[in-house]
Each structure stands twice: as C-alpha cells, then as structure tokens.
C-alpha cells in the first residue's frame, strides 16, 4: 500500500491535464468496461458476484491542484496562476515541475531587502514568478509555453508512526482505493468514476454522474484534519488515526441521512475505525453528483488529511486502510437497500 500510494501521488495531474494519472489507472485495473469520456473522466464498470437492486457509483478525482503559466516576461521569468485553491503561502520558496521535467523555483527578493511590512505580509500570486533559470523570453520559451501546467516538486516519505507525506494525496488516495476495489473480486456490480477537474469546481463529476446515472453514489475523498498544535475541540475537525471520516454535511452537500447512518453502523459492526467531521467546511464531487439528473443518494467517505492542497499533505496509512475497508463494506450494505 505505502509504495503504491506514493507512486500514484507522484504522477502529475493538474486539473484539466490528468492524462498521466488516467493512463496509470487504466494500465493497473482489470475491469469489464473502461471508457474515457469527452472531459477525460475514466468510467469503469466492474461486475461483481451479484447484481444489486440499485445502480451504485463510486467516485474519486484524479486531478490535483497545480499551476498554469499565464505569461513569460522579457527577462525569462514565468507569471502563473493557481489551478484550484492553493494558499500562496505554500508556494513561495518551493520548487515546481513542468510536465516535460523542466524544474523551476518560486522566490522573491531576499528577506534582507524586504521592508518590515513586506516581511510580515503573506505573498499573493501576482507577486510571485517562477524562475526556470532562463535569462530571456526566447530561452524560456524553448522549455515552457503559456498554458503549460506545473505541480509541486517536493519530496514524499513515510514518517513517524505510520504517516505519509506527499503532494496530491487529495485525491489519489481515493483513486487507489477504487483501483483495489476493482481488482479485488467485489461482491456486487458497480461503476467507478475516476473524475477530472474536481479542484476547479467538481466539473468532471457532473458529466460522469449524468452518464453513469446512479441511484446511489459513494465519493471517496480526503478531508481537512486540523488535529495539530494549537487546535482543540471542534476546531480539530477530524483526526488522523481515528479512521474513515463519514460526512453528514459540508459546504456543497447535505449527505443522505440514511446512507450516513448505515455507513457508520456498518463500520461499527465490522470494527472499522470511523469518525465524522465537526465542522461544516469544504466540499467535493458529491456536490455535483447528488443533484445529477433526478437526484442521487450520496455518501462521502474520506481519509483525514493534514495540510491539504500543499506539497506536504499528511495522511495516516491506517486511515487509508480503514477507508478502503469501509468502501468495500458499504458497497455490500448499500446494494441491499
């Protein structure tokens, strides 16, 4: 599990540019029907040992937050914007990497040359440039074009008591869980949507939900955990090591109450660690899916993750395993509804 999660997180897949992730998934699954739709969603059908009464769709997004070059300056620096919601404070002082392997770094003038006000003010995207070492626009254009995407070029590792650190755990963790379900002799037939463009407004999931037309959807995601120093009570939101997060509400979806309760009961019955979120925040593909066509009963199962949308997402392997177990268990539980 550890090597595979770090491998899939290392793939480049800025929203709208997910092909490397899609090809990886396609080449690592054994399914009955695999289609890439017009937006790039990978729609997979896998027959189980039984056919459920309801049409069930699992969904996880392939894309990650990243960056796009908007302009190249005369002196060879790249202006850029964020693709998806990235806190500019996690971009400054980092290395980025383009699809063709070109590395770049993001910096400003030296701290010594900043005024006291400049030192205290967090950076914003218009203040930052990518430096690929080029000394002119011509030199830069040999390596990078306007519209090219870059991702965080950061290390990935296992640390502490079973934790992992990488970019893009959001939502390659969900992708990997679905791949294992597809390859794992599922009890019931199901659809698996590996979606695109979640990070720029759950766009891929809209088309995927229309095409698959499920009765019930289960979104496999990561969700913000704030169980860190200086945070207590409900402000911790959810905690690493306490298992799969089953959500009752976020800013995009009020989840189906029956599915929420059944998911948590199923987890409890099987001894799968589970928790819920103590803050109504965030959103995921459920927001698009649950209002698709005539409405879809929707449930979200998430891996609690610290520092989302940064080069240093942190998750706990035991939580990914708990989420995988519960995903498999709810397929069977929801199939009987």
């Amino acid at each position, binding site marked *: 599990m550890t090597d595979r999660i770090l491998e899939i997180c290392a793939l480049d897949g800025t929203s709208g540019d997910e092909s490397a992730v899609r090809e990886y998934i396609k080449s690592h699954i054994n399914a009955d029907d695999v289609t890439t739709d017009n937006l790039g969603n990978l729609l997979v059908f896998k027959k189980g040992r039984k056919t459920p009464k309801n049409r069930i769709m699992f969904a996880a997004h392939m894309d990650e937050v990243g960056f796009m070059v908007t302009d190249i*300056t005369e*002196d060879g*620096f790249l202006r850029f914007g964020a693709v998806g919601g990235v*806190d500019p*404070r*996690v971009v*400054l*002082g*980092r*290395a980025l990497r383009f699809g063709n392997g*070109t590395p*770049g*770094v*993001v*910096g*400003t*003038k*030296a*701290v*010594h*040359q900043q005024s006291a006000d400049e*030192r*205290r*003010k*967090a950076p914003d995207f218009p*203040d930052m*440039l990518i*430096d*690929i*070492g*080029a*000394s002119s626009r011509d*030199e*830069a254009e040999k390596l990078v074009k306007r519209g090219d995407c870059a991702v965080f*070029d*950061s*290390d990935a*590792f296992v*640390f*502490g*008591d079973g*934790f992992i*650190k990488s970019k893009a755990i959001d939502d390659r963790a969900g992708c990997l869980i679905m791949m294992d379900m597809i390859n794992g002799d599922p009890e019931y037939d199901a659809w698996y949507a590996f979606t695109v463009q979640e990070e720029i407004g759950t766009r891929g999931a809209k088309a995927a939900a229309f095409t698959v037309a499920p009765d019930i959807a289960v979104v496999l995601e990561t969700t*913000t955990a*704030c*169980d*860190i*120093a*200086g*945070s207590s009570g409900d*402000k911790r939101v959810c905690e690493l090591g306490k298992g799969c997060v089953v959500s009752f509400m976020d800013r995009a979806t009020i989840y189906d109450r029956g599915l929420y309760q059944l998911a948590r009961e199923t987890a409890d019955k099987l001894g799968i660690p589970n928790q819920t979120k103590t*803050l109504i*925040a965030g959103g995921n593909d459920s927001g698009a899916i649950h209002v698709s066509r005539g409405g879809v009963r929707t449930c979200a199962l998430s891996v609690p993750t*610290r*520092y989302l949308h*940064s*080069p*240093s997402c*942190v998750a*706990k392997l035991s939580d990914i395993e708990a989420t995988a177990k519960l995903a498999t268990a709810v397929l069977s539980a929801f199939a009987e509804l």
Partner: protein
Amino acid sequence: MDIKNTLRLLTGAVGVSGAEKSAADTALELLKKYAPDAGTDSSGNVTALIRSGDPGAKTLMLDAHIDQIGFIVTYIDNDGFLKIGSCGGPDMKIMLAQSVTVHGSQDIRGVVSTLPPHVSPDHTKVAEVGELSVDIGMTREQAEKIVSPGDRVTVNSEFRELSGMISAPSVDDRSGICAILAALDMMDLTKLRYNLAVCFSAQEETGERGVKGAAFRLQPDEAIAVDVSFGRTPDSAPHETAEMGSGVMIGVSAALDRGMSENLRKLAEARNIPHTMEVMPSTTGTNADSIAVSRGGVKCCTLSIPIRYMHTPIETVKLSDIENTARLIAAYAGGADND
C-alpha cells in the same frame, strides 16, 4: 575541480549554525587535497595554513562560512509537536507546510504545521517562528526517544539544475567554500605570494561568531571574506543587486580596506575576470566585519557571489559566478608568479 559536483557535495551536507559537523567534515575532506594538515578547531571552524616558500610572506586569510541558517527544537508539546526557534534569519514567508528534517538521535522527517485558514485569525499575516510547530507524526513519548531540545531542523530541498543555474539549499555559503576550493585548485601552491590561512568558519549566520576565534589564532595580515550577495530578481532594486552571471562582486565599504578593494578591481580588469563593484556604505554583514577588528586589525575585502532567494531552501546561483570568484581569489592570492 568540477565546480558543479563540488557544490552538489557541499550543499548535500547539513550544518546549521552551531552544529556544523557534517558539512564541516565534507568540506574538510575536500580541503585536505590541498592542505593535508587541515583540521577542525574547538569552535567548529575548518582551518588550514598553506605556507608560501617565501619566509617573509604575509598571511592572507581566505574565509567562507560553513554554517547554514536553520531551526532549533525548543520544546516537545503534549501531542508530540515540536516548537522551534531560528538559527540565523530565515525568510519566514516560506515556512508553511514545508518538508523538514529533524536532526535528532537519528534524522527524522516532518512537516511544518500552522493553523489552517478556518481557525487562524489572519492568514494574510506571515507566521512568526514561535507560531510554528513541526509535525513529526509521533506522540510525545515516541518523540522524546529521538528528539531533544537543541536538535537542529532543516528544510528539505534538492540540488536542481535549472536552465543555466543551480538551485539548492545552503548555497549561502557553500558556494563561497566551493569558490575557495576552486581557487586552491587553480593555483600552483608551491609558488604563493602569501601564506594562505584557509578558514571555513562556523556560526556566521548567528553573528559572525566562529570566525572570531579562528582569526585570532591564524593572525592574518589581510583577509578576503567570500560570501554570497544579492542577485537580481524582477522585484528587486537594480542598484542593490547584481545580474546573475555578471561575475564576482568586489566589496567597497567603510569597514573594508580601500586599497584591497582597488587592487582586486584592477586585478579583475587586468585578467579580464567579469566583476561588479558591491558598495556597502557602512558595514558588510559578512565575516569581514569581525575579521577586520581581530587582534590589532586586519585589512579585509569581500568577494561575493550573486545568488537569488537568499535564506530560502531554493537559493539559486550561476556556476560561472563561482568560477569567476575563484579566478580572482587565485589571481590575488597566487600573485604574478602563479600563472
């Protein structure tokens, strides 16, 4: 000597101020090729004396600092998160969610943690070092087996080859060390104008402390402090920065010896070594400030290598600027007979 490979080796080693051993050992090994008697003193400075054949020769100190900025563990909290202080003056803007290594009884990895937007009062403000914690994925009991207050913390980064430049951690001042080693490589060490007192000094970033003892002990007549300075970025003032690739920056300052600055400038012109003049009206903020007032006084000048993004993990340098700095050091230290 291959400058790129030497810089890769030196920037791959760790040496936060006051805990320079790993970087110092790496530099010492490289220095021994030119000065077999080189060693490390009680302050952590790596020093060597390379004698000129001329018994009347004066002693020239070639100094670059081996330490790098970093952090130090001050406290382990009840949940196993580490509180830290800074060693030197890091750019605090770049710390959120950084990947770090804690140099405890073994090296362990972690991530810099701060409160996310929904619980932090103002996320347009840069967090001060006291507001940061390091997440090492351990309980307090687990952490205490490996980490103790006083252990150093460094931000993880890699040696990256950009288009015509190198981006790496601790280019400040491993590129200065690299320039001195390259200069030693360029010279015929049997025909020196000066006795060379080489010093790769500790604790520059925390107030030029290491070099004080070394300068006292080595008793130079003159000294060149080889450090990094500000390379041009689009948001910087042109008169405060040098273009990347414009060569060695020769210091001119009230705290430096005017004659040395002028001699270095003339020498650079005579040898066609690309250079610019770096004017620092009062003091220089380098080891030259401390060396100059050692014992009865030492004539000092600075030679600086322009870098971008100083005091971040992505410090960026052009190898030709290191090489031209080395050429000027060699031209000055070697003297006319050393071509």
